[in-house]
């Protein structure tokens, strides 16, 4: 029987109350004594030389404390913003890694590039002074789109990056793949774009830096998914201050979705400006500023070919991708279109030959980095669109084509042709479950009902896989990572038996304060309400690599379990002493230490108390206290996967696509809190449907972001979405102690191709064969008109 409140229970969230009564504490809610405020003057041009920066009027504006430029950054020898992953090109050469000064030096390379920092006693004074800064720009030719940046004689973002290429990377076996295509009975080809997205966490980024001169110590409050990583990068690369003099606090954070992983210039600049002015300095992005300073996501153009034999078994896959990196390399940017994309191209399929080439391209746009899914949605979209196209061209059922080519349950562990080894899964089971949930057998009736209303109903399927639980450090290091990717935990049992858990992961909506407490309840029998989970403060938590890539439970949770196991073992020694028995005769369960086969027991709380009040205690052989730390480095990635099914209704008169039904079956491994897992799936689905139907960050050819507000960038609202049917089929991960895989990104990865496949299914009777994301009413309507003309 499961422990009450332990693994498998939908415990209500411990963190909810403070948010519901308006007492959450987000970074912008914090006002420090003597608080000063920063605003940035940012480039209005996509590419320009800085001829002259006149800050004289700003310096004498009321309330101004400092006006800082790239020259000051250089004079104080602040380091450039580093990239965390070194990717090598095919020929073994390193990627082109241009400088990334915190404030522009000599040139600006995207709209939003920060040029001048104003610090003043109030926000209003800082804004007023910013308006007085006069920058003389010599505007240069710019490139924003992949097609333009890769054209012959395109303007260069960086002179050292010929053809704007950052790296020319590949994975897989070209000869084996060529050979597979030579024997193919059928070859299906597809060209597609993965649309550029703005992550848009509801809380804009904010940073508040404070230098305590008396103690020569820095504190930075920041909207971060990984405060220890920020400390590491500031200590080693940008601020050049040792870790013990630098405290990073990421308090309540209002969503991240990847955009708050990275070390941003503003974090460095407010901390540095505090040292220069002697006052704490806070910067809060407004939303338009967020659009041109937060890292974006996706932005790929690809061509792909799938080879099949006469029985429709997959023989090989060839992929060529251009990936837009923007103007500078953000923290994880180089890893996203390579190790989080190319390695995922086998999907859930037994694919005997794969070859993928990726050209990463600089453009005069804001940097592109990981956004919910990060590389894996791009892989799933390409593969699932291609498989659907194959089914349509070969006139076979898209479900049966997938089923025929899936890795069979008995084939695990399965070694793909693109480096990964999947430990376990059951893709057929998720497919069956999702089909049942959406009532597939009555699809024809629903299509008829829609047709009777003048609507076209389409059905779309996507079977996907992802790699989560980043990452085995040795493997990541071999692939170019410049940091380890383990996780750390400290578990402190207090004298009266309550527990504090310190985790290096960060919760910004995921509910770790509840889920991680449930691990303690499950293992130690301590009620959830007696467990505190602490995160987000480098002074309170030993170390950590933070939260991204659905890694928190798989890696951070495993570290907690390791620490708890040490607690249990130490408790056995204490209990053996108290019970006058051999340690080997002590067992632990249901919150009690017991002499095996007897009714002689000591409750966990009694053992904890004895550890701190060691009057009767084996002090010669055992230290007092009950607190343990652990670091956990994963043995492999985890591999969540599943099936996402979508039904849409298209109005052929207007092109409006309504999402009529969504049913998914995921395999995210063992589920600790089903309520929270379902909630994560819902959120991912909304973002995935947003990508498919609504969202796109649009740059014009000159590098202006034309829809950088909530008026122009369309995100899903409540009326755009249906209720979601969410199911799970569990196969337990084989290599971590909890059997968990990760759930944060499933929806964003699996559902976009299912939506587009459904739209194309709806439009197939009209002769439409392709549509790009987002499938807006205008685009759908135009596709219908074009098909009519062509017919």
């Amino acid at each position: 029987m499961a422990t009450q409140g332990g693994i498998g229970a939908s415990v209500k969230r411990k963190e909810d109350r403070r948010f519901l009564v308006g007492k959450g504490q987000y970074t912008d809610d914090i006002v420090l004594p003597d608080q000063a405020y920063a605003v940035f003057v940012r480039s209005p041009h996509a590419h320009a030389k800085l001829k002259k920066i006149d800050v004289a009027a700003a310096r004498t504006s009321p309330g101004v404390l400092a006006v800082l430029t790239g020259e000051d950054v250089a004079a104080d020898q602040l380091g450039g913003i580093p990239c965390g992953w070194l990717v090598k090109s095919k020929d073994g050469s390193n990627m082109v890694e241009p400088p990334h000064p915190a404030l522009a030096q000599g040139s600006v390379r995207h709209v939003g590039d920060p040029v001048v920092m104003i610090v003043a006693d109030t926000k209003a004074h800082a804004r007023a002074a910013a308006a007085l800064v006069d920058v003389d720009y010599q505007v240069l030719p710019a490139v924003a789109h992949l097609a333009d940046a890769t054209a012959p004689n395109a303007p260069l973002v960086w002179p050292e990056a010929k053809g704007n290429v950052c790296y020319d990377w590949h994975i897989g076996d070209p000869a084996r793949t060529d050979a597979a295509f030579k024997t193919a009975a059928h070859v299906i080809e597809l060209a597609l774009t993965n649309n550029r997205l703005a992550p848009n966490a509801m809380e804009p980024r904010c940073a508040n830096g404070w230098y305590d001169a008396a103690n020569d110590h820095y504190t930075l409050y920041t909207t971060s998914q990984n405060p220890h990583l920020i400390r590491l990068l500031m200590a080693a690369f940008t601020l050049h201050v040792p870790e013990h003099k630098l405290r990073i606090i990421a308090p309540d954070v209002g969503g991240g979705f990847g955009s708050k992983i990275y070390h941003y210039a503003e974090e460095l600049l407010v901390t540095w400006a505090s040292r220069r002015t002697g006052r704490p300095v806070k910067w809060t992005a407004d939303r338009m500023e967020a659009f041109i300073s937060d890292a974006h996501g996706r932005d790929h153009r690809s061509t792909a070919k799938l080879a099949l034999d006469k029985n429709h078994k997959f023989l090989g896959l060839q992929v060529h991708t251009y990936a837009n990196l923007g103007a500078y390399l953000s923290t994880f940017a180089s890893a996203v279109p390579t190790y989080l994309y190319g390695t995922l191209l086998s999907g859930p399929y037994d694919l005997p030959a794969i070859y993928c080439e990726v050209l990463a391209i600089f453009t005069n746009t804001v940097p592109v980095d990981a956004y919910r899914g990060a590389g894996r949605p791009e892989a799933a979209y390409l593969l699932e669109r291609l498989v659907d196209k194959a089914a349509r061209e070969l006139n076979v059922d898209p479900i049966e084509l997938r089923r025929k080519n899936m890795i069979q349950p008995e084939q695990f562990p399965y070694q793909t042709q693109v480096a990964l080894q999947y430990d376990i899964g059951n893709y057929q089971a998720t497919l069956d479950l999702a089909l049942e949930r959406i009532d597939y057998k009555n699809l024809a009736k629903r299509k008829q009902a829609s047709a009777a209303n003048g609507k076209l109903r389409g059905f779309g399927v996507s079977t996907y896989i992802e790699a989560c639980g980043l990452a085995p450090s040795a493997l990541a290091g071999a692939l170019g990572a410049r940091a380890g990717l383990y996780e750390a935990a400290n578990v402190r049992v207090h004298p009266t038996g309550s527990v504090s858990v310190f985790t290096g992961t960060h919760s910004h909506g995921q509910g770790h304060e509840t889920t991680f407490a449930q691990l303690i309840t499950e293992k130690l029998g301590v009620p959830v309400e007696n467990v505190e989970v602490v995160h987000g403060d480098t002074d309170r938590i030993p170390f950590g690599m933070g939260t991204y890539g659905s890694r928190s439970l798989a890696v951070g949770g495993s570290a907690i379990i390791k620490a708890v196991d040490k607690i249990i073992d130490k408790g056995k020694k204490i209990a053996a002493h108290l019970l006058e028995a051999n340690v080997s005769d002590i067992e632990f369960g249901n919150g009690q230490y017991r002499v095996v086969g007897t009714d002689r027991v000591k409750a966990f709380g009694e053992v904890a108390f004895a550890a701190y009040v060691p009057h009767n205690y084996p002090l010669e052989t055992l230290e007092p206290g009950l607190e343990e730390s652990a670091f956990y480095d994963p043995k492999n990635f985890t591999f969540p996967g599943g099936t996402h099914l979508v039904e849409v209704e298209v109005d052929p008169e207007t092109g409006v696509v309504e999402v009529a039904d969504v049913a998914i079956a995921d395999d995210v491994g063992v589920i600790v809190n089903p309520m929270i897992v379902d909630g994560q799936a819902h959120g991912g689905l909304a973002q995935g449907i947003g990508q498919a139907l609504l969202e796109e960050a649009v740059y014009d050819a000159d590098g202006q972001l034309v829809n950088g507000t909530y008026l122009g960038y369309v995100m899903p609202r409540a009326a755009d979405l249906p209720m979601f049917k969410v199911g799970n089929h569990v196969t337990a991960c084989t290599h971590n102690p909890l059997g968990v895989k990760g759930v944060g990104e499933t929806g964003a990865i699996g559902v976009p191709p299912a939506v587009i496949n459904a739209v194309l299914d709806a439009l197939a009777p009209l002769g439409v064969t392709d549509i790009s994301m987002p499938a807006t009413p205008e685009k759908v309507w135009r596709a219908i008109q074009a098909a009519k003309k062509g017919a």
Partner: protein
Amino acid sequence: MAITLRVNGQAHTIDCPSSTLLVEALRDNLRLTGTHVGCDSSQCGACTVHVDGRSVKSCTMLAAEAVGSDVTTIEGLAKGGELHPMQAAFADHHGLQCGFCTPGMVMSAVDLCRRTPKASEHEVRHWLEGNLCRCTGYHNIVKAVQAGGAAMAAKGVK
């Protein structure tokens, strides 16, 4: 200029420029930071409060316009330490994740359910068109609003 605002049942006199928005007065002058700012185009609804019982985006009005009105923020919704039924429903139905949009969602939902105690799913979804959430996909928010409305009616809570 000095203005007196009545917020959560208490009168506060503050000194602020005439251009001060209500949301700025609440957050910066009164330090009621439960009301959030998520955009600069009155699109996200994170700043929703009640002015004389009606939900209003507090970034769309000047603080001076609220003089003489009763303003209620998320901090004023729970009474005597007990959550308002709508707040309780959001917790019971996992209607929040990161919590940033939550105060605006709850204030907007309370207004809906005062007007329409048994709002349908369709009505809830369309009422909430002024409130963006990036975490929940709205699924559990819709459930929470319907349950919260039912609880308000059952308990006779406005």
